[in-house]
């Protein structure tokens, strides 16, 4: 290693001296030598060797007429400028000189490199060159300059504003002398999108809308990639009336025929977002976009079809019926990569309906015989899900039971879990199922979930299975070898349940189970063991009524993802959110992200602000809750109200507590009381709210917060605004009530406002309330959506807001 690095050092030193020799030389052939040397430097740079020590030599040699050498030099400088700003200063001179070159190619390249240096100190040098670039007579240079403004904005936003670049760009956008503004008015659009939030106060939403409209009219003049950006912008636009929506859609309809999948998806997003509030048109849009989407999944690389399928999945979840006749498109090919297969199986599950169920289940059964273990499992799970979602399960039960006969461990395991869920939902099938389950050899099952499922069924249907006590006995005998607490907990419950039904055969069994449980190292198992023990002391009847009460069939299993979440993902159509299936704040914000980080990466040590922590906890809780529901659900029916023992409760198990007689436990409520769960305390009265008179919130933060926070409250409120012609009166009125306006727009009879307010006593930067308010003057009402950073004050704030609206008279 040492020798190697020494060797490298030697090489770099040699390069250095060679470059130095070349610097002043004008000998013939020197350009070729230079090119070779530069290539070497760049290849070192690429593989990660630090060649920054050559900086001054590289710059010295940069005077060349060879375009390729120049480009390599720019690349080199761009790479090391950030780490060596002092040295990079040397390059400014020659970059600026190149910006004046006769050749527009070189002018453009130099300007691009200059803007890409991204060093704060260079801003002053940059501004001059940029201004010249924007007025260049060559379109290529102007395009580069436009992009340069965006780069400048990222390192020094103030410089952008001071030099009024935005105004220049705007005028370029609308009246560039060059007829071929296509390529670079696009770049302006990019910028414009970035900037619109901070320009909001000066440019009203109205003109922005106009622009959107113009942009979509001239969309054909843009390159395909630029079209994606423009379409993305259009999708954020809220049309004034339905006619405008139709106009835009008519203009854009041909984009669905574009060969670039990115353009097609962007167009689809526009269609979906524009029509989101027009239910029947929205349905028609689904019909229209179906064919293009199905084309996209069958053409192109598997990676692309994966991205498209993810989007299709989202749509299918929203409108399953619409796609139910196209289920054949989701049949897997043998050669599909497994990530595509997995998605297709999910899709088949989602579109399954009474009419196509038989075909789909047949097809899924084929996959269950697949070589790939992962896909087999997915397929079986899918069959189970379809069974749970549809009422006519006749054919499916047979299939599932056939899986058990395939005698492959993972198939059996997966199927057992499903059969268990199935009999919980359809008790009428339990007899058929149990007959087959009874034949499953308990030895062949290794997976904890499957074991737990089998044990649950043994306990629950012990009257149908003759040898149930003996199977359970062998499980209890191997108590110590059983690694999973989940299985041991289940075993304990099953032992108790079987005891209630067949006491003579299983008394010993229960005794062994209880003894083992009390000695168990796992806290939950230990507690549950003791609990059962004491419960049994109160009499078998009492114990049975608690451990094994009569159960009702489960009507619905909880959905994994709630619909609000799905809506938020839908808002972020055509982005990573759809692929990850979570709104962007979940994977972009640090505080959320840690949940998804790899475990070997250290957890962040900084203390989170309490506010965020709360939200975080809620999410965590939500997640846990969902899991509990959708998971085996074993505890659900058996334990009834007794799920509490899983969380250790010192009150019950402490020795000082005298035994409570059974008669003292009349109802579940008593138990909760007993366990120290104080649920009767009323929630604290809502605290009073005072709003800050001068809240400070910039538009960027507003946008960020808006996208992060869930809608806390939405309501409609009457407003007397029949004669409202502009947004100003309401703005001023709300300002008096300490509610500030972030953005507003619209035309009579519909106006839209974004308001915000802040708690007076809150820390700076916290306690914000964000409001979206749609005013329909003709209907005399306002639809309001409130998002709040402090949920305790949401109600108080909305009351305030309502009263403010009520007092508005024009």
């Amino acid at each position, binding site marked *: 290693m040492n020798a190697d690095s020494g060797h490298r050092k030697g090489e770099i030193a040699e390069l250095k001296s060679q470059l130095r020799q070349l610097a002043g030389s004008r000998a013939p052939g020197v350009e070729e030598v230079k090119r070779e040397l530069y290539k070497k430097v760049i290849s070192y740079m690429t593989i990660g060797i630090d060649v920054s020590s050559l900086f001054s030599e590289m710059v010295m040699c940069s005077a060349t007429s060879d375009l390729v050498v120049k480009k390599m030099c720019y690349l080199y400088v761009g790479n090391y400028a950030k780490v060596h700003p002092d040295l990079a200063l040397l390059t400014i001179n020659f970059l600026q000189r190149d910006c004046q070159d006769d050749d527009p190619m070189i002018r453009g390249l130099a300007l691009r490199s200059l803007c890409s240096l991204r060093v704060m100190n260079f801003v002053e040098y940059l501004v001059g060159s940029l201004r010249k670039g924007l007025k260049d007579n060559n379109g290529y240079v102007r395009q580069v300059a436009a992009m340069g403004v965006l780069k400048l904005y990222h390192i020094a936003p103030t410089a952008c504003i001071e030099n009024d670049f935005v105004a220049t760009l705007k005028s370029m956008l609308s009246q560039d002398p060059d007829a071929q503004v*296509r390529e670079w008015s696009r770049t302006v659009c990019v910028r414009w999108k970035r900037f619109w939030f901070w320009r909001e106060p000066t440019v009203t939403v109205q003109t922005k809308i106009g622009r959107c409209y113009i942009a979509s009219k001239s969309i054909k003049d843009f390159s395909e990639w630029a079209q994606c950006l423009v379409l993305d912008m259009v999708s954020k636009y809220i049309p004034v009336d339905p006619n405008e929506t139709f106009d835009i859609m008519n203009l854009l309809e041909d984009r669905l025929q574009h060969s670039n999948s990115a353009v097609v998806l962007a167009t689809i997003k526009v269609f979906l977002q524009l029509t989101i509030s027009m239910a029947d048109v929205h349905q028609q849009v689904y019909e229209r976009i179906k064919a293009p989407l199905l084309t996209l999944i069958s053409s192109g690389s598997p990676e692309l079809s994966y991205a498209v399928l993810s989007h299709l999945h989202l749509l299918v979840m929203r409108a399953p019926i619409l796609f139910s006749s196209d289920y054949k498109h989701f049949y897997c090919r043998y050669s599909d990569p497994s990530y595509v297969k997995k998605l297709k199986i999910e899709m088949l599950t989602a579109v399954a309906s009474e009419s196509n169920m038989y075909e789909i289940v047949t097809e899924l059964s084929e996959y269950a015989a697949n070589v790939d273990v992962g896909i087999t499992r997915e397929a079986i799970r899918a069959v189970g899900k379809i069974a749970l979602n549809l009422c006519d399960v006749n054919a499916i039960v047979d299939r599932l039971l056939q899986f058990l006969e395939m005698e492959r461990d993972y198939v059996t395991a997966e199927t057992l879990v499903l059969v268990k869920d199935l009999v919980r939902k359809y008790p009428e099938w339990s007899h058929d199922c149990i007959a087959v389950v009874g034949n499953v050899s308990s030895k062949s099952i290794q997976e904890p979930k499957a074991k737990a499922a089998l044990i649950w069924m043994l306990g629950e249907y012990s009257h149908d299975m003759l040898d149930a006590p003996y199977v359970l006995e062998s499980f209890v005998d191997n108590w110590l070898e059983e690694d999973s607490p989940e299985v041991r907990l289940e075993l304990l419950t099953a032992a108790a349940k079987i005891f209630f039904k067949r006491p003579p055969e299983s008394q010993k069994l229960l005794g062994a189970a209880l003894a083992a449980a009390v000695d168990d190292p796992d806290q939950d198992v230990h507690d549950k063991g003791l609990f059962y023990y004491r419960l049994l002391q109160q009499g078998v009847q009492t114990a049975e009524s608690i451990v094994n009460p009569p159960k009702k069939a489960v009507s619905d299993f909880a959905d994994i993802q709630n619909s609000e979440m799905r809506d938020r993902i839908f808002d972020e159509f055509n982005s990573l959110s759809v692929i990850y299936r979570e709104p962007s704040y979940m994977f972009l914000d640090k505080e959320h992200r840690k949940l998804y980080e790899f475990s070997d990466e250290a957890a962040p040590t900084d203390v989170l602000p309490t506010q965020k922590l709360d939200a975080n906890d809620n999410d965590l809780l939500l997640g846990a809750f969902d899991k509990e529901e959708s998971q085996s659900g074993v505890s659900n029916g058996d334990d009834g109200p007794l799920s509490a023992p899983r969380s250790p409760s010192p009150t019950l198990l402490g020795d000082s507590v005298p035994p409570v007689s059974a008669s003292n436990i009349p109802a579940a409520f008593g138990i909760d009381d007993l366990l120290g769960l104080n649920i009767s305390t009323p929630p604290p009265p809502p605290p009073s709210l005072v709003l800050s008179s001068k809240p400070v919130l910039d538009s960027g933060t507003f946008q960020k917060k808006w996208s992060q926070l869930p809608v806390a409250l939405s309501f409609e409120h009457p407003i007397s605004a029949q004669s409202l012609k502009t947004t100003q009166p309401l703005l001023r009125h709300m300002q008096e009530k300490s509610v500030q306006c972030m953005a507003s727009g619209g035309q009579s009879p519909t106006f839209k406002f974004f308001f915000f307010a802040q708690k007076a006593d809150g820390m700076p930067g916290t306690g914000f309330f964000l409001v979206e308010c749609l005013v329909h003057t003709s209907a005399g009402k306002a639809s309001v959506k409130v998002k709040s950073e402090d949920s305790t004050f949401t109600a108080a704030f909305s009351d305030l807001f309502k009263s403010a609206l009520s007092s508005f008279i024009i």
Partner: protein
Amino acid sequence: MPVAASAIYFLNLRGDVLINRLYRDDVGGNMVDAFRTHIMQTKDLGTCPVRQIGGCSFLYMRISNVYIVIVVSSNANAACALKFVVEAVALFKSYFGGAFDEDAIRNNFVLIYELLDEIMDFGYPQNLSPEILKLYITQEGVRSPFSKPIDTRPPANATLQVTGAVGWRREGLVYKKNEVFLDIVESVNLLMSQKGTILRCDVTGKILMKCFLSGMPDLKLGLNDKIGLEKEAQVKARPAKSGKTIELDDVTFHQCVNLTRFNSEKTVSFVPPDGEFELMKYRITEGINLPFRVFPSIKELGRTRMEVNVKVKSLFGSKMFALGVVVKVPVPKQTAKASFQVTSGRAKYNASVDCLLWKIRKFPGQAELTMSAEVELISTMVERKSWTRPPIQMEFQVPMFTASGLRVRFLKVWEKSGYSTVEWVRYITRAGSYEIRC
């Protein structure tokens, strides 16, 4: 959200960096390490082409022995980013003369840096059209097999092209002989059950063009698709000619096609790029003429023997023939040897893919060929895991046949100088994923 790529990496299979280009500063420097440890070294490599590590999302694709990885730190447009990679690879291929692998990248890395500079700026995709880029990215690596630029104009004009209205074609092209080649290439996807019922069948077709035309020609293409014909009949106020018409499920066009005119007049009119390009793609699910039917019968005789009988019937016209027909019949891993009887072609057992391969160089139309094989299996001591029978797969090419029945009715070329052109039209149908369960 636009793409906004923070960086793009080219890695070989060991995870060495071949090319890296940072476009933004919002990602750290150890991205390659993260990719290596969390994606390349995990077993489940095939899980997903979009992965998240830390705060960054990695969108990657493997092409031959190279990984192309795009790193983004925002909620980027994934479909667009992946499409960009696909297009970029096509661009590199056209520069390297078709090959794209580690060697090609190592040999052309300066060129790739030059291209990366042009095709993406600050993380936004720019012009990726090879035709235009080749005008001003001119290293030794440039090879344009289709067009020999007759006039070498100064690069000053090239920059105009970058922003030009017809971004895909430059002006002033001159050819001595004006020719257009039109290839209609269809691939048939089939999934058939054991019982011979068609579970799924569709055709994805594309029309490839090779243009060697002078000036700025306007082209108009007529097909026998239903909507187009009906529209024509309407305009000319005469009944549509009888004959087969095709219903296209969905069509997409190259950016040169005037989509407005397609929507209003249902004609495909365009100013073509120079050289080769893909004019349109289409998809059809109804009324497909299958070129082949396969009747397999596989019997397991005891634990060490299998009997395989496959009958293949060609359904296209007797004057036509298929080329390069391969029938792949999967057999268990523990196959020892196989003996064959075929009515045509050659068959052998290929242990590396666990298949019996039956190859027929030329398969005549309206014919029926069979292969029967006896397969011997190694008897194993352990209980043999039940064999999951993968589907039989077929490869073939049938020239002058379209499974959809699509035909070109006319191709009109109009240029202001009024030269005459020669048009060549070819049809070919290939197997896409042609699977028969057995």
